[in-house]
């Protein structure tokens, strides 16, 4: 059986650390939990990790400094835990090359979904060179997707609102442009976000995305439906 991915959790609250470790282990992830950046560096040196969950509010060395150090060492995906609504931390974090962020207090299931999504994205690109930390804008067909701000700009530079799920979906499609993504894979991205009937969630989200991208649903040119259950973003994507 495949070895479960190894996750490092950096959080200064012992209870949260232990509970999060137990929770993630329950969902078939291997976890090493550390208290601060010093321990994190030590653990990093002694182990091999597929992902780091990093609380930005740490005693002593700030989480952002550790993220910067980590990025200089490796391409390991980073999911940040940020203070609720503190935009600056989040944006700096994402610009430093964090792959995603979850505001605290987080919903454990949503954190799990984000971890899985990031792992899948990272695992998917294991073969080739990984793109730069996922923080730089992606451009396709005149549209710009800015991971640092989780926003989409139209060709005139006007922000077009996306729901969290729509953004994740579009990012996944844009990062793997011209490759088919299965419904199951896309469903993972929406898990934990949706209260409604789940089977239609993908179709609904895709049709909304097409509307927003002004992509005619019946004759979609940008997000194409692949027979057999998948979608593909048919466009050249540039990493700006």
């Amino acid at each position, binding site marked *: 059986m495949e070895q479960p991915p190894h996750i490092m959790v950096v959080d200064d609250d012992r209870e949260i650390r232990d509970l999060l470790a137990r929770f993630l282990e329950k969902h078939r992830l291997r976890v090493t939990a550390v208290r601060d950046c010093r321990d994190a560096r030590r653990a990093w040196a002694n182990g091999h990790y597929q992902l780091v969950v990093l609380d930005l509010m740490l005693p002593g060395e700030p989480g952002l400094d550790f993220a910067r150090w980590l990025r200089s060492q490796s391409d390991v995906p980073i999911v940040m835990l940020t203070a609720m609504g503190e935009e600056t931390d989040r944006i700096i974090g994402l610009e430093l090359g964090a792959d995603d962020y979850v505001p605290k*207090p987080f*919903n454990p299931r949503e954190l799990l979904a984000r971890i899985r999504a990031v792992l899948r994205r990272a695992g998917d690109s294991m073969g080739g060179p990984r793109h730069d930390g996922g923080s730089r804008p992606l451009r396709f067909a005149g549209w710009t997707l800015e991971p640092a701000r989780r926003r989409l700009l139209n060709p005139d530079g006007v922000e077009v609102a*996306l729901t969290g799920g729509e953004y994740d979906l579009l990012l996944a499609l844009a990062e793997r442009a011209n490759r088919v993504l299965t419904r199951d894979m896309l469903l993972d991205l929406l898990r934990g976000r949706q209260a409604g009937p789940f089977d239609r969630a993908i179709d609904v989200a895709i049709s909304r995305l097409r509307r927003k991208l002004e992509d005619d649903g019946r004759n979609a040119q940008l997000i194409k439906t692949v027979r057999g259950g998948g979608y593909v973003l048919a466009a050249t994507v540039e990493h700006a």
Partner: protein
Amino acid sequence: MVQAAGLAIHAMDRIDLQRLSQARNLAFRIVGLYRAVELTAPAARADVLGELRHGPGLSAELSAAPPVANLPEMPPREQRFWRINLNLVGMPPPHHWRGMQLLGGPAWHRIIVGMRLPDGEWLNVSAAIEPARPWHSPTFLAAFLLMTVVAAGLTLWAVRRLTAPVRTLAAAAEALGRDVNAPPLPEDGPLEVATAAAAFNTMAARIRRFVQDRTELLTAIGHDLRTPITRLKLRAEFIEDDEQRGKVLADLEELETMVSATLAFGRDARTGEAVSALDMAELLRTLLDEAGDARPEAASRLEYEGPAHWTVRARPLTLKRALTNLIANAVMYGGSARVRLVPPASVGAAGAMLTIEIEDDGPGIPPGELERVFEPFHRGEPSRNRETGGVGLGLPIARNIMRAHGGDVVLANRPAGGAKATATLPA
């Protein structure tokens, strides 16, 4: 008023003066005539009288009887006035009272003075009286008009100067009500005004500190609650009973909503986020989609009406929070939300406003509550809140944000039932 009274005083004074000078003048002439006739022998009197020049407006005749004319006897007040004048200029004593008869008066523009000569003959003098003309001098009117205009101008200027600080103060109080961080008043001008401005600024500073303290307290509590809420959420994941776990998670969700509302309220709506262009129409549709995803049973009653695209410049996340609150309110209390985006009538005109109307089909809001619901921590009727939760910050946050954008939010009841929130934003 003062000018009118002054004018009246002047006119009356002038009338009096004119009458007095006229009476003096006539009295001199009448007494002169009398003296001349008195000194003449009775036989020659008629000739002398004929040769004497009476001057304009005066005629005299000799008669055996007191004067009879078609004029009534002079009213007592006038009599006194004329007698005093005649006596003053030297009418001999016997005529002071009984030997003199006076007829007419200013009302008839003529007086007749009958004077008995020592030998019993009467000298009757008839004199025309010119009516008093208070506006005789043309320069007077011009001067008066000029004075009136200048006085009015000066008064107006002085009043405006005196009331300007009061108006500034009123405007400052109004601004403080809207925004506790409004700039302070300039503490200059007359001493009283400067003192009032300083007192106002001190008061504003105290209010600001009070609000800040409260906000900081709330923010601190909100921050401190995050760790325990996170722990509880994690713990809840280990509850085996699915139903219980769901309930605990729902409670925690509610708790978190309250905490994040408190934190959002504590944050200044102005700072932090940069202004950028965003598609308002798409934002509203996305918010409705999100509301529908969260409450699938209401999804069919969420509608958008308006242009497919409309670009505004705003702080995207902050604006999104305000509109989310308004839509969530409609869904929570009305079970539906009809969002209408109304572009301004004339694009680009100064003060043009974009209007966002959010209607629901709920029970509406009691008229007395329409403004009070915007007060922080105000909850409508208690029964309504017990089941729906909420902290009473959604609307205050929305209003803070819209006002920080230069717009506003107001609530109203629709004639057809239900409530309507109207948010405005400079176009």
